[in-house]
């Protein structure tokens, strides 16, 4: 990122090759629209290019910053539409539960494939209700209050599920991030 902040387009190209397919997949999932997802990819990496110095100043690791930008673009687009694609019954839980059937794909042979396999495994360890609130919050851009209304659950229950889910995922994935 230091090279990108310094204006090195080759460095940006490396980041693009490593993360563009993750960002595109995320945008496709949230927006359910390939053209809009493409725009999100371009806007996200444009932001990486033009705001690299901001990342240098704030510190932290790169993926949370990058995916945060991408997700914010997606959620903003969702809100512009004034409609959410995941309001159809069944959508909310489909994606995270779409765990591969165990057949090794191309992704599984790569570094990102390994990460994908680990997060899917960790999510699979979560109780369904906890996985559901993660799905609604992260991929549908709902606040805890909106989730409570959507599920007709007490807000405190939703908060507890969010807290427990993140803490459990953290415990399961800490060894990965520590590598």
């Amino acid at each position, binding site marked *: 990122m230091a090279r990108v902040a310094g204006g090195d387009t080759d460095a*940006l190209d490396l980041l693009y090759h490593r993360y563009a397919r993750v960002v595109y997949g995320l945008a496709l999932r949230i927006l359910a629209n390939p053209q809009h997802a493409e725009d999100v990819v371009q806007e996200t990496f444009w932001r990486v290019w033009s705001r690299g110095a901001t990342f240098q100043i704030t510190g932290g690791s790169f993926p949370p910053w990058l995916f945060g930008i991408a997700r914010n673009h997606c959620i903003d687009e969702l809100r512009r539409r004034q409609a959410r694609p995941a309001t159809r019954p069944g959508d909310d839980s489909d994606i995270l539960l779409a765990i591969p059937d165990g057949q090794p794909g191309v992704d599984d042979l790569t570094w990102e494939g390994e990460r994908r396999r680990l997060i899917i495994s960790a999510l699979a360890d979560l109780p369904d209700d906890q996985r559901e609130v993660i799905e609604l919050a992260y991929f549908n851009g709902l606040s805890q209050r909106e989730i409570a209304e959507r599920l007709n659950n007490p807000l405190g229950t939703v*908060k507890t599920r969010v807290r427990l889910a993140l803490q459990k995922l953290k415990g399961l994935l800490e060894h990965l991030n520590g590598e």
Partner: protein
Amino acid sequence: MHTDTSDTPDSQLEAYALGALDAADRAAVEQQLAESPERRAELRRLREVVAMLPYAVALADPPADVRERLFDRIAASRPAAPARPAAPAPARRPSRLMPAAMAILAALLIALGGLTMSLGSQVAGLDRSNRQLVDTLGQMQQILAQTQGQQGELAAQLATSREEIRSLSARLREDQYVISFVSAPGVATRDLSAASASLLARGEMYMYPGEASAVVIFSGLPALAPGQVYQFWLADESSQVAGGTFAVDETGLATLVVEAPREVNAFRQVMLTVEPTGGSVHPGQQVVLQGSL
């Protein structure tokens, strides 16, 4: 609507990392984060977890023209930028997010332009007011300086006037004394005549037998050269006593109150001489008037 106000910002950190908080809750968490390095460290760990979630969805390669448009945009933003990395060059398609962004940017630029013009106008107005105030202050300082100068002049004039008043008052008192002295019953007069026939000067002495005070009124005395005064003398057979000095202006008039060491009628003669300023111990040779008592 379900509500839950029992949560502390601590318990909301996971939801904050997930982007699932309302604005008010976000503000509360951010306030706590600002005060706690430990919570910031915990937030970084939670964000690493959240950053794993995108890998849970199916990864997909974006069309090649996405990358192409990205690097075109970068190249357009920096004229001197190095050539972008080689990549397939599919048909270019403008971003759909761009028009909205450009519209917002244009609106912002227009608003900023208006704000800048407004601020510029306000600054210019304030600058004009400031210059006017500075000019006014300068004028007031000038007026104050003039007033202070006039005040100084008036103070000097006042001092001079007071001195003149004191002098006139003294003169008035002296004149009143002289008038009362010369008009009192029992007063005796003696004439002083010119020592030289060419002089028109004369004097009249008013005295009371047995008293040491006397008043002498002179007229026709010529003005003296600088450094000279008239000096009055009383004399008997054995001594000559100075009775006072004075000067005259162009009118040639003068009044002298004499305080003799003893009764005036004990002396036998009086005379008026010209002496150096400050007077002399003994009378000089230039006698102007003289008389007998």
